């Protein structure tokens, strides 16, 4: 079943003080996110990711088009009770403690009064803030605020969760924990829609991704499909003190790191290269086909428009 259905959402702002001129933040966007998947919405800064999210949350009104979440309109309170949202760089009421904030949001989301306290404590433990529940948010670090933001997004057990740059401000351990948490949400059957420009996070987590640039959708697909294409090249890794001269003749450009050497060459030259290593009695560690990474796909999808734009200039 479709969790999020975007039907031609478009946003044009009128900018300028005196003579207003239109500025397109998002060109008509058509997209679907299925229930139970982690969907990555990727794009560089200013691509239109946050604008899309704000329209889905009912914070910004579309110029044209519409969207449905769990089959309901974006301004339907019944739908909003079933979604969670973490904005980019969240900021909360700094005079409240983390526990008070979560209880307040639980109330607004319709969690019964007698359950709010228990649910808030559970969430604080889930995001690793069980000791900081009584601390006012003004004393929280950026990473701790991000964790509170994640807790408030999931405390009412929503079916669909929207995260805008969820790893922002987190240290490596925190990033790992958030990745694990998103994975848990998927296992619980929830749909996760998250915006990021950190491709390694998307590649590690997402079932499908969409790439947006300059307000325009450039591509959508499953991460497995996008990264499975082999490039007719192989990566050789071996250990040894030297790089055989015959390998250079095969077009390999070796990168030496200590006693380990890594080289990429055409798949057609693979057997000849292995033979050369054997002759030199070097220890072969691995031979791996080079696959397209999400980063390669991302860069490829961003390039054409930029080159066109460059041509126009």
């Amino acid at each position, binding site marked *: 079943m479709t969790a999020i259905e975007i039907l031609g959402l478009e946003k044009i702002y009128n900018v300028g003080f005196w003579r207003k001129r239109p500025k397109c933040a998002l060109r008509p966007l058509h997209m679907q996110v299925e229930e139970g998947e982690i969907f990555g919405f990727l794009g560089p800064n200013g691509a239109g990711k946050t604008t899309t999210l704000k329209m889905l949350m009912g914070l*910004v009104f579309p110029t044209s088009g519409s969207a449905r979440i769990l089959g309901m309109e974006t301004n339907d309170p019944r739908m909003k009770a079933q979604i969670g*949202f973490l904005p980019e760089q*969240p900021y*909360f*009421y700094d005079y*409240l403690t983390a526990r008070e904030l979560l209880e307040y949001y639980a109330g607004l989301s319709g969690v019964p009064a007698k359950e709010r306290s228990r649910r808030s404590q559970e969430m604080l433990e889930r995001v690793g803030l069980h000791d900081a529940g009584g601390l006012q948010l003004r004393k929280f670090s950026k990473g701790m605020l991000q964790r509170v933001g994640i807790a408030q997004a999931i405390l009412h057990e929503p079916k669909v969760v929207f995260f805008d740059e969820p790893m922002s401000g987190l240290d490596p351990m925190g990033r790992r924990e958030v990745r694990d948490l998103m994975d848990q949400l998927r296992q619980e059957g929830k749909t996760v829609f998250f915006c990021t420009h950190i491709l390694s996070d998307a590649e590690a987590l997402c079932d499908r991704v969409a790439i947006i640039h300059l307000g325009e959708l450039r591509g959508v697909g499953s991460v497995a499909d996008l990264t499975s294409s082999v490039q007719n090249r192989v990566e050789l890794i071996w250990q040894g003190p030297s790089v055989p001269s015959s390998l250079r003749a095969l077009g390999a450009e070796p990168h030496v790191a200590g006693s380990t050497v890594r080289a990429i060459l055409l798949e057609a030259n693979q057997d000849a290269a292995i033979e050369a290593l054997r002759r030199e009695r070097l220890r072969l560690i691995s031979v791996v086909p080079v696959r397209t990474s999400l980063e390669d796909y991302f860069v490829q999808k961003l390039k054409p428009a930029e080159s066109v734009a460059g041509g126009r200039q």
Partner: protein
Amino acid sequence: MNSRIGLIASNTFREAVRDRVLYNLIAFALLMSGAAILVGQISIDIERLVVINLGLTAVSLFGIVIAIFIGIGLVSKEIERRTLYTVLSRPVRRWEFIAGKFMGLAGTLVVNTFFMAIGVFGALLYVSHHFQAPDRWLLVALYFIVLQFLIITSLALFFSSFSSPLMSAVFAFALFVIGTFAEDLRGFAGMASGVARWLATGAAYLVPNFSALNVISSVAHQQPVSGQLILYNTAYALIYTTMALCGAVLIFERRNLK
């Protein structure tokens, strides 16, 4: 009351208390103590008049300043700090947010006025050693002051739904000053002719009539307040407040939260 409005109102009240808004009570207490002691020493037979005039005027001014300076930030601060995003992405309608914010600040002002009223009655007791029957009209004057707070809070919210905090403060304060002289404006409209009469009449009925809500001087002179005026002022304040809040909601419902 809708539970979401109640939650937003209690959170607004909590914010005001934790932002030390009620600290103004300390300044008020110092003012009233100083005035009571000083007036007792320098006035003869008019101690009550001075304490009531000074006390009620201070209650009004302290409250108006709080209503304007907190009211103008109720919406704009939430937008600027993006705390509104996590509220409106929940099953909270925009009108509920405005209503909750209004009730939270109105509640803060009522509590503040309650403690200041205790201060006024305390100072009155200090200078005259006993209460008199006409002192009950002080409660009516305080009630009218609270009605003024409701109007000015709704206006501050209205302006903050579309303009910057600074401009909202200017607009709200200007309306308070003009509204204080609303009766004079109506008198001028009666004397003017042509377009000036038309414009003055329109302005006189558009600005809030704070002069009708100000009975400080008459209660200080122990004059009673008619039940008809209480009824009229109550209806006027509620209608004006509701209209200002409806205006705020209409604008806020269409606003893009960029």
